[in-house]
């Protein structure tokens, strides 16, 4: 993993001091609410319904165990002893008091962590595949490029006051696991005749106006990546709408201009930047690539005969992933379960996961955009022991990619934007569907819940998507099906009129019954949906309502 240099550390120290001074000026009245707002947001601090929420950056989802233990310690000392993994691979603290935030930033800086640009109208944390560097189908490890983008975008003087937030995702695999089609800019790394380059997508995004990204350029040599990104951001900063925050994302600009005119504008801007100081040299790229070279894998591992415990085997088939290194697998620890919000993890669990990462996975772990933790480099022969340990801590219960691994935003219990409380709905679904055999037999189903149109729960790309809507002050939930992430990313179709929170488990059950009833052997939910269409699902859900 990338190790912070003196300059990176100095920057964090300066930033912590800067924010301390800004907070002091806010608290003594020198800065108004309005003046303080962009400053605190660019340090990840939201003022919420209850206490503020602080979002901690986890660049491209990668952490060492010292950092994980520090998050645990901070959550105990300054918060309620738990943290939350967001759908953009960051950590959130839900209850820190404003006066402690500068101190939290200092504590974070001690382990090379920060909250820079985790909110606000700036370039946000760059995200990638949680299996980066280990995925069996990987063409290029995206992490060096993510780190390059992190450095370029950190405190970039020109792009801190964009029309709206700006999110970049990078994928280096045949299968897109980074949702690059749902980002302001999506980068698909490629290789052509031995040269590293990428395909660039623009204008994807969820939110109120969900759009699948459009190809801006099919091939860009990697040496031009940063100057090209700078050109894109410059066009967006100059021309993006600022009169209406709901029409301010780059997707609206791209749609208004048309992709060809937008591309022309980027090319005109790029003409002045191309081959300039941002041009990536081998001397610049190689140390980054070296920082992410593989850990000391054992190459002489004997073939492993897996334990025959059926519950273990079920977990093995769903929660572990093929690895590019023979004898190893990547493991997903699902942070979903009864009584807590999806993605919530207690300080004790964080310490436990850090111990596991030290024992089983070279002292590193990852956050995933499915709000889970990934141990990327586990020896196959250690899997049963790992599973037993996870079981003892209640962390081997949920199946990755099943209904029990549902994604949800924090919703109206915490967020001032939300129309509806998404967590009780998530909890009701967990309670209704807690039979592990049934969940396993259903196969992969992605269920996503967002408390409002801002779509932090990515409901548009859930196989089953649930969206909280406000109708005359009462909360309702709209259900869509058929959405998906990956190379065939698509926006789900709305079933019909919305439901009350209490109806949702019943509605989900009807969708599942319809699926089971119609499925061909080995078919997944989304395959059945593609074959039979929305109508049978619609009929099943709304038929009984008319009785």
């Amino acid at each position, binding site marked *: 993993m990338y190790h912070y240099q003196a300059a990176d550390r100095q920057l964090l120290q300066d930033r912590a001091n800067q924010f301390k001074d800004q907070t002091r000026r806010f608290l003594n009245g020198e800065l108004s609410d309005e003046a303080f707002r962009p400053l605190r947001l660019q340090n990840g601090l939201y003022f919420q319904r209850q206490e503020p929420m602080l979002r901690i950056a986890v660049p491209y989802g990668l952490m060492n165990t010292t950092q994980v233990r520090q998050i645990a310690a901070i959550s105990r000392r300054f918060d309620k002893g738990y943290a939350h993994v967001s759908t953009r691979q960051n950590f959130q603290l839900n209850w820190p008091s404003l006066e402690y935030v500068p101190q939290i930033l200092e504590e974070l800086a001690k382990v090379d962590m920060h909250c820079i640009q985790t909110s606000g109208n700036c370039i946000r944390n760059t995200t990638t595949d949680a299996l980066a560097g280990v995925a069996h189908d990987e063409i290029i490890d995206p992490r060096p490029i993510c780190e390059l983008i992190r450095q370029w975008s950190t*405190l970039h003087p020109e792009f801190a006051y964009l029309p709206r937030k700006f999110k970049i995702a990078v994928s280096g695999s045949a299968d897109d696991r980074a949702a690059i089609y749902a980002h302001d800019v999506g980068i698909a790394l490629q290789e052509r005749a031995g040269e590293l380059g990428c395909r660039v997508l623009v204008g994807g995004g969820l939110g109120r106006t969900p759009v699948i990204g459009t190809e801006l350029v099919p091939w860009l040599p990697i040496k031009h990546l940063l100057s090209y990104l700078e050109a894109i951001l410059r066009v967006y900063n100059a021309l993006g709408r600022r009169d209406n925050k709901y029409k301010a994302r780059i997707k609206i600009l791209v749609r208004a201009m048309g992709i060809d005119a937008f591309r022309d504008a980027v090319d005109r801007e790029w003409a002045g930047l191309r081959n300039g100081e941002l041009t990536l040299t081998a001397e610049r790229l190689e140390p980054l690539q070296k920082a992410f070279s593989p850990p000391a894998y054992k190459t002489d591992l004997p073939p492993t005969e897996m334990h025959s415990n059926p519950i273990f085997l079920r977990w093995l088939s769903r929660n572990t992933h093929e690895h590019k290194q023979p004898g190893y697998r990547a493991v997903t620890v699902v942070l979903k379960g009864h009584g807590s919000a999806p993605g919530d993890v207690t300080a004790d669990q964080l310490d436990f996961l850090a111990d596991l990462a030290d024992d089983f996975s070279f002292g590193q772990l990852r956050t995933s955009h499915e709000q889970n933790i990934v141990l990327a480099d586990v020896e196959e022969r250690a899997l049963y022991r790992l599973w037993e340990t996870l079981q003892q801590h209640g962390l081997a219960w949920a199946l990755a990619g099943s209904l029990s691994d549902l994604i949800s935003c924090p919703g109206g219990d915490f967020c001032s934007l939300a129309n509806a409380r998404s967590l009780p709905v998530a909890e009701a679904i967990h309670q209704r569907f807690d039979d592990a055999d049934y969940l396993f037999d259903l196969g992969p189903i992605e269920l996503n819940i967002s408390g409002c149109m801002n779509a932090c729960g990515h409901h548009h790309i859930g196989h089953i998507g649930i969206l909280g809507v406000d109708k005359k002050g009462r909360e309702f939930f709209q259900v869509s099906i058929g959405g998906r992430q990956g190379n065939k990313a698509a926006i789900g179709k709305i079933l019909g009129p919305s439901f009350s929170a209490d109806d949702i488990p019943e509605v989900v059950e009807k969708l599942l019954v319809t699926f089971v009833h119609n499925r061909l052997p080995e078919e997944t939910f989304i395959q059945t949906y593609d074959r039979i269409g929305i109508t049978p699902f619609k009929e099943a859900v709304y038929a009984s309502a008319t009785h």
Partner: protein
Amino acid sequence: MPAQLTDNEATPIAQTDDYGLAANDAVNLSIPSFSEWLTQQNGSRLRVSTADDIAPLEAFIASVSYVEIYFLDSNDGRGFTLGRRLRDIGFTGELRATGAYAEDQLQYLYRCGFDSFLLPPAVNKETASELLRAISVTLQPSTISERQVILSER
């Protein structure tokens, strides 16, 4: 400090320019606005707003010695790109920020090519000098060289 205008009845309607700005917005109306300058195309000093498209300026940039960019509001980030673009097309003169930018933006503005600031109200030169040095390292290559900064208090 401009004189405080307390009696609206007695105040004549202020002269405003084509941005709707009046002299008491701390704007020097004797300097031509971008559109006024365009009709003459020979002055060496001009005022630009964040909404102007400065492309026509490029051909004349060598004869321009002073550009003032007026920020209508502190969240309007177009001024940052405008500053960079002016420097990119070869503007070497004084680039002044005026209007409603925030003091915590001073360092970013400097790094985008501004070297002259009409400071926000209640910000003195000493505070401004500290804010200009808030972050001591940069992770982006800089195309703009170190230069003297002009600070003016209101």
